């Protein structure tokens, strides 16, 4: 499944500025091909997370459309879009993203559990892969930053989604885990997934098939 952003742009209303309109992402076309790992890099505030969120179906563009193959993402009703995200998209948010009242296993199995499907086996396998298998019953407030990040990545990949978005996925990780994460993303891309990573770390470039830069809302 490939993801296409067609003439997408994002503007925010912001009082106190000259025109009261702040352009986070200028109009652009963007393709996340299946079977490839695409990287966007840029400085903080350059608009790279905004473009990722528009493509991931959690931020409606001010203009333009996002297609997953032939499916227009933002033409769907909320329930349909929610289920679509659940089935087809893996998302690694920036920063801490655990659901605090669930233990690590429940957090990783969350994409299955939300629709009352049994995902314990898949979750256990993914936790094994990212070295957090022994933390199944531990609550998130007992985890280190690195463990939380690995848990978030395991959760994003647990359904083996066709499209994966990762916003600074290796921010809290040491070199060993950074290699493991990019290795896993690379593997998923090789297996046919469309992977988009937003990062400011140049280490990611060596795993990328395509590299884009964002600068002040412009895709270069």
């Amino acid at each position, binding site marked *: 499944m490939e993801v296409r952003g067609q003439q997408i742009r994002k503007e925010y209303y912001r009082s106190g500025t000259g025109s009261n309109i702040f352009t986070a992402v200028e109009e652009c076309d963007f393709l996340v091909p299946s079977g490839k790992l695409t990287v966007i890099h840029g400085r903080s505030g350059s608009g790279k*997370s*905004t473009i990722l*969120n528009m493509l*991931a179906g*959690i*931020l409606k563009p001010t203009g333009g459309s996002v297609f997953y193959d032939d499916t227009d993402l933002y033409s769907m009703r*909320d*329930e349909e*879009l*929610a*289920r679509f*995200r*659940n*089935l087809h998209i893996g*998302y690694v*948010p*920036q*920063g*801490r*993203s*655990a*659901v*605090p*009242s*669930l233990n690590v296993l*429940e957090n990783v*199995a*969350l*994409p*299955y*559990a*939300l*629709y*009352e499907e*049994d*995902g*314990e086996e898949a979750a256990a396998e993914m936790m094994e892969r990212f070295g957090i298998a022994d933390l199944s019953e531990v609550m998130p407030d007992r985890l280190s930053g690195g463990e939380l990040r690995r848990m978030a990545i395991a*959760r994003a990949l647990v359904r083996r989604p066709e499209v994966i978005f990762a916003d600074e996925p290796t921010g809290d990780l040491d070199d060993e885990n950074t290699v493991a994460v990019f290795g896993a993303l690379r593997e998923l891309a090789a297996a046919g997934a469309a992977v988009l990573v937003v990062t400011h770390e140049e280490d990611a470039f060596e795993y990328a098939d395509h590299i884009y830069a964002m600068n002040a809302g412009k895709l270069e």
Partner: protein
Amino acid sequence: MRIFRKLPILNLCRRPVRSAMLLCIAALLSFTVFGGAVMVSGLRRGMASLEDRLGADILVVPEEAARKNDLESIVLQGSTGYFYMDDSKLDEIAAVDGVGQSTSQIFLASLAASCCSAKVQLMGFDPATDFTVLPWIRKSYTEDLKEMEIVVGSDITSDEGDTLTFYDTDCTVAAKLTRTGTNYDRCVFAGADTIRVLTASSVGKKLNQFKEIDPNHVVSCVLVNVNEGADIDQVASAINDSVDGVTAVRTTSMVSGIAANLSGISHLVRILIAGVFILAFIILMIAFTMLINERKREFAILRVFGVSRRSLAGSVWSEILLICLTGALAGSAAAALVTLPFSGALRSRLDMPMLSPGIGTILLYLLLAVLICAAAGTLSSFWNVSRVSRADISLALRQER
């Protein structure tokens, strides 16, 4: 895994202190609603019971007694106290124009001393002419009362066949009356002959406040029903004019004082419920705003992984309703524990008749308390739940990383 369904309970358990505080607010609201409703209902039933018990249009008492005593409490509610007038007044009153039925009663209060089993109000009636006490006693005891037989109110801890002693004179309990919610529940009733024996005994032992009376020729009050078509006020006025040394009072005017008190208490309870509702509403609104603000990121994560707006709103509503309903049940249970077993103490404290409502009414008030708590929770969080379900996911994800 049914995690999403369990999420509201898990969230409440994870923050026990916060959950307990929210629960206490809901409990306070339901305590006020349920307790207040049960109390007012009890007072209303007590009042109705009192009106049932009245059965006379006019009460005639000695002039001096009307000045010195709280007649309302003694005659209508059975508080302890006694006074006397010559029994010839009964014939004089019966001869007044417009008087239909008339009957006398004789009162005596026992003492909290070794001569008596308990301090109670003793009320004697004339079985031949009585039309106020006897119809009520007949509901519990259909036989004629023999000499030295008594009938006791529901609060007196004696049963049929027991012996109670007043002024060292033994009486046999013939029956126990049904509950009225008034001080009559702590009264002892007997035929006039029995009460005269006890009064004579109290005089003989110099334990009666009235040392010079002849127990065989006194009565405490005369109860009158006017003839059909006669004006009650005019008949009362005629009695006052034509019979020396007595005061005739329209009984409904005595009850109206209690009714006014009841109305005042009902009004106060309504204000209290409204005040607590507003207070609970404000506190719950602030608490839910804080609770939802601090969990914006968690809600955004759930949305990212496939929870729809409607499901998210439903989950948050479940959590809020769970708090409110648990609190409502706890508060109502606490109110029931306070108001129902201690209705006697409340009755004494308020000095008003009170009769606990039936189980159907109690369940209705429980439902009312639960609904009001649910309404307070729903209304106070409506804006917040709407806000959380419509929140921009990407903005929420950026907050407090």
